[in-house]
């Protein structure tokens, strides 16, 4: 009996339909405390005062934590990729986004925890906030990140992600038409039906059992270990069953915060985000600002592309440099464009830090370049399917940063879609393949970019 390729029912299907699947919020440990957070009410402010004594003094409150309780306050989740830490687990001297966590309370029940949060005395001095990535580079823009308003640690400390290929000037000089457009997809929420939730149990042998909804058990374990400065075997992450993630349950800080509360109180601690917190305080998909200028010929060849991307990272870096890099590697979409000038910036704004979401980095560029392709077809009066087939990646073509395509199926998927939608293609387009370019499909301007697929 063949198993791969078979329509086997879900491994956990019966558990799902009988309500027996255990999510983090279903775990029951006697003596568990509930958690509430003090969050910044301001987009950008200095913290002038933080006094948790009245909260700590409350009956039924077992632990309050602030930045002082964190052994390593700032840890870069992608430090291994060279992205330096820039974000405190809990705010220390300032807050940079509305909703930023400042202090956490663990108490006997949710109401008590919320009451204790309201008794934390905190003072702020508001600062001007920056929300528009297009203005972040201006001299008069408020400086909202200690390293300036955009990330400056790409390779060799470059302040942008850069792709260069061929001769962009040649492309624009030789174009018949130059089509320019601006593309701005919005920040959206992951909005899984299960909100962010974590429960940490301090064990008798000094270990911490962390029940987590993380999409990445070992990744989250590493983050906790780094902040707490403990070896991995002090922690046991229990999970593997998440009620939806879509990229929003990777840069989670709940595990670390609950661990600190559990250690301080000696009791199991649980933090379940409200849906409001999930919508207003959880990291989002990034908004992107992309400007494209394509040098095109009247018969539909894209000779060159100049592109500027401003990636709205929100208040801190998180995964943004990684996402922008991925974006840059794919900024030609499914097409072969031989001359490229791409510049992308990770820009800070005073909004909730943005993070990975389904398609991270490429969803944005797909929207921009595909809409732009449709526009080009319209401007030139060409068939939108034919222009795509002509420029589509073929075996031996190279990507923006020089990787050789060995087996692209752009031609196949487009032809299939044309057939499905009843779009009649001329014979020469109907019979196109992904085989290496030759003849009419290999104009002079595409020769230099060719690579050897055997060498990959």
């Amino acid at each position: 009996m063949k198993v791969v390729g078979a329509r086997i029912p879900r491994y956990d299907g019966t558990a799902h339909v009988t309500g027996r699947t255990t999510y983090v919020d279903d775990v029951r440990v006697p003596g568990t405390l509930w958690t509430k957070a003090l969050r910044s009410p301001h987009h950008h402010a200095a913290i002038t005062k933080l006094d948790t004594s009245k909260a700590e003094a409350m009956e039924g409150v077992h632990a309050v934590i602030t930045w002082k309780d964190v052994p390593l306050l700032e840890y870069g989740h992608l430090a291994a990729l060279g992205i330096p830490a820039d974000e405190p687990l809990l705010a220390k001297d300032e807050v940079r986004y509305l909703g930023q966590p400042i202090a956490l309370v663990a108490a006997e029940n949710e109401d008590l925890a919320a009451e204790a949060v309201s008794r934390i005395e905190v003072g702020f001095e508001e600062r001007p906030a920056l929300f528009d990535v297009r203005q972040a580079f201006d001299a008069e823009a408020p400086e909202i990140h200690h390293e300036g308003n955009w990330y400056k640690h790409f390779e060799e400390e470059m302040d942008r992600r850069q792709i260069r290929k061929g001769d962009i000037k040649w492309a624009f000089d030789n174009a018949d038409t130059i089509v320019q457009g601006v593309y701005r997809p919005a920040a959206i929420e992951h909005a899984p039906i299960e909100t962010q939730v974590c429960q940490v149990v301090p064990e008798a042998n000094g270990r911490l059992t962390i029940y987590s909804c993380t999409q990445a058990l070992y990744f989250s374990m590493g983050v906790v270990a780094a902040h707490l400065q403990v070896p991995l075997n002090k922690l046991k992450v229990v999970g593997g069953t998440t009620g939806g993630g879509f990229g929003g349950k990777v840069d989670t800080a709940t595990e670390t915060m609950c661990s600190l509360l559990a250690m301080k109180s000696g009791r199991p601690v649980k933090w379940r985000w409200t849906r409001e917190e999930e919508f207003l305080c959880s990291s989002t998909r990034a908004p992107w600002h992309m400007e494209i200028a394509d040098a095109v010929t009247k018969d539909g060849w894209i000779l060159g592309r100049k592109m500027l991307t401003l990636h709205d990272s929100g208040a801190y870096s998180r995964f943004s440099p990684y996402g922008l890099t991925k974006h840059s590697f794919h900024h030609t979409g499914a097409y072969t464009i031989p001359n490229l000038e791409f510049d992308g910036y990770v820009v800070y704004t005073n909004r909730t830090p943005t993070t990975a979401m389904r398609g991270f980095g490429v969803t944005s560029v797909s929207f921009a370049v595909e809409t732009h392709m449709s526009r080009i077809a319209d401007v030139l009066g060409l068939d939108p399917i034919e222009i795509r087939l002509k420029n589509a990646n073929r075996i031996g073509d190279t990507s923006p940063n020089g990787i050789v395509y060995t087996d692209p199926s752009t031609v196949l998927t487009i032809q299939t879609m044309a057939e499905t939608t009843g779009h009649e293609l001329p014979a020469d387009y109907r019979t196109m393949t992904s085989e290496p370019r030759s003849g009419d499909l290999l104009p002079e301007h595409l020769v230099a970019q060719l690579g050897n697929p055997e060498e990959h």
Partner: protein
Amino acid sequence: MNLTVNGVTHEIDSSPLTPLLDVLREELGITGAKAGCHQGGCGACTVLIDGEPRRSCLMPVGYADGGEIMTVEGLGTLDDLSPIQQAFIHHYAAQCGFCTSGMLLAGQAYIDHGGTDDEEAIQNALAGHVCRCTGYSKIIDAVAATARGDSFDLTETAVGKHTTMATGGAE
């Protein structure tokens, strides 16, 4: 007060204003109904009270006094899955599973009230339930199939009604 859940009567300590969802999950340890939003907006907390779908997150438990509550646990068990549960398995109507108990109960109520396999009617009946994983398509298929009285092969999932498989690449 007393609360009858899935045919069993429990004596409740929580105050009458406590949301029914919290009583079920925290006091009684019946965790099938989920806390998706506590705002009445997602449907994951749905239970049936006297056969009617209700948002347990918004309902003070005192309001349910005297009513027959059914949670997903009352629909069927591993050894005795109800048709709609079988349908959800066969049609792959659950991915992460978090919205599933609400969908099942709302679907069951729809069928119990005479609902047919009309897709628009099913969409209408389940409109207030949010799912982020499935795109709803297979949930509708599962409810429709149950309404039709289909029987379900639990060893294999169904081909999507608008799916074609093709093989491409080098011939």
